[in-house]
């Protein structure tokens, strides 16, 4: 199979307006991935599936990832020197930089026909609050049907073009998206006086008085 750069160049040649950038994977597994712009994501996916050289006809895995907004404080130290060159004091400027958070969907594509390895494509949403729509790839690979519904259920990514987007694991009346990093678990613990700290405090807070000691 041709490596990722060649695929990216072919895609850029094929779809001039598309944004296809290569995301490097620092880990030893060296499974780099292609970030696709949302506008032509589905055409690119169809091309990847039907291209005679690639024939990526099997989407093994669709995963949702939550990248919360990160705060960086860059510290710039500028030494202030007096006339004789001795450093009087160091001036520190802390600049707070916040990278915007986003939700990401990763697809691992394989070819059953040519039996060659994973091509990883990533789709990113605008942000984590209102722009959470991503074109659904279920019309291209039907194996993403249930997995996209699970991402919608646990992450809140809205898949446009999915034929039956409902919650799949949580019950329909559930409001929140449990797999997000900023998800707060509901405080409806039964009274479980396990010795361990966290559960104990939460249970005590919930039930001030412990239940009457049960006769053993």
């Amino acid at each position: 199979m041709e490596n990722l750069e060649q695929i990216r160049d072919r895609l850029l040649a094929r779809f001039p307006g598309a944004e296809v950038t290569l995301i490097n994977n620092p880990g030893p597994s060296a499974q780099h991935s292609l970030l696709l712009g949302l506008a032509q994501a589905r055409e690119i996916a169809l091309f990847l599936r039907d291209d005679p050289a690639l024939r990526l006809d099997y989407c093994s895995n669709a995963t949702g990832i939550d990248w919360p907004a990160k705060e960086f404080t860059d510290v710039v130290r500028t030494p202030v020197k007096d006339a004789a060159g001795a450093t009087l004091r160091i001036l520190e400027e802390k600049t707070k930089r916040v990278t915007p958070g986003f939700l990401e969907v990763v697809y691992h594509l394989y070819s059953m026909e040519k039996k060659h390895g994973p091509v990883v494509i990533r789709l990113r949403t605008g942000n984590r609050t209102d722009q959470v729509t991503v074109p659904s790839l279920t019309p291209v690979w039907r194996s993403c049907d249930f997995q996209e519904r699970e991402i919608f259920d646990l992450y809140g990514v809205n898949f446009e073009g999915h034929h039956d987007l409902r919650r799949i694991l949580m019950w329909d009346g559930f409001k929140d998206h449990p797999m997000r990093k900023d998800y707060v678990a509901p405080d409806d613990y039964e009274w479980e006086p396990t010795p361990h700290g966290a559960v104990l405090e939460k249970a005590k807070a919930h039930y001030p008085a412990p239940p009457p000691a049960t006769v053993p």
Partner: protein
Amino acid sequence: MTDPEIASPSAFPEPSVLATHSAATVRPVHDEFHGDLLEVSMGPQHPSTHGVFRMVVTLDGEVIVKLKPVFGYLHRNHEKLGENTTYLGSMPYTDRLDYLCSMTNNWAYALAVEKLAGQPVPERAEYVRVILAEMTRLVNHMCLVGFLFNDLGTSFTPLLYAFREREKFIDLFESLSGSRMMCNFQRFGGCRANPSPEWLGAVSKLVDGFPKFLDEYEQLLTGNEILLARTQGVGCLSPELAVQAGITGPMLRASGVGYDIRKADGYGIYPRFDFRVPIGAHGDTYDRYMMRILEMRESVKILQQALRDIPAGPVMDPKSRLRNFRPKPGEAYGRIEGPKGEIGFYLISDGSPNPLRYRVRAPSFVNLTVIEDMCLGRTVADSVVILGSVDIVLGEVDR
């Protein structure tokens, strides 16, 4: 005895234009002659759904018009747990995914972490992993075939024969790893304990006696006319739809697509063994049953070769770390050919002891996508058999 022209499911939906999929195959529902359709909910408390799985079935008489799978009753957010515990802490939880094949779940997770951290594995550990994986494949296929015949209406006889054999394998797992089903045996860089020669001897004796059990089992069932009638031509799945819907494992090979990750990826030391991958031609329930039987025979061959030339030596890589194991930032997707299909782990590490993202690609979850396509036009009794042949385990589907 089946009438080929019995209401066989209409032409397989053209996969590419999916939007019209659900409308195309459902017949006009409420026209005059049909009378009122009966909506029956099979499950989650139902004798033949394997665990808490529910199918909302709309019946016209006995024929299924619409079938919606509903699950999530066993959802305990396994992946959020994975993000809150260390890499080692998640290993015992992988036993609880597909609780019939804990060894292959452990191996898939260990493989993914080793790919993530670039951790080498000693030679003997690779052989032990292949032996345990193939033993698990035998155990799982025996369970599947037993449960399938229970759905077909035998009074537990084939199930108890299969479980009699499974017990022998489970006892070997217990004498090696300490627990029958929750083995928690693989670590990142090898196995937790070194199997003793007596243990390996017991395995080879059991494996050599296994084909005799299979022959008796096939004599009991494979030629049985009622089985042929109940399963041939029932729940057909076309190869195109199977590939399109991401079906993997024996169910895919029953439809005629010869894709086996042991051959395709060649992970571990599978390229060293010569074994064949059986393929079906019709993709119906009978083919899926025969796939499991033939795969069991192939697994016996692999086991015999692995047991013959397993080297001595350590089973744990000396540089592997149990506690505060911090792989370098990066991501990795490791997958193996589990008994039910491709089971894969997608891990993203940011250098901390807990993974940033811990994703499990469960074969039963994806294999359920086509349950409605197979059941349309069949009767209620068939839908139970088709569900049985898909071989789902709810621990893995709901995670």
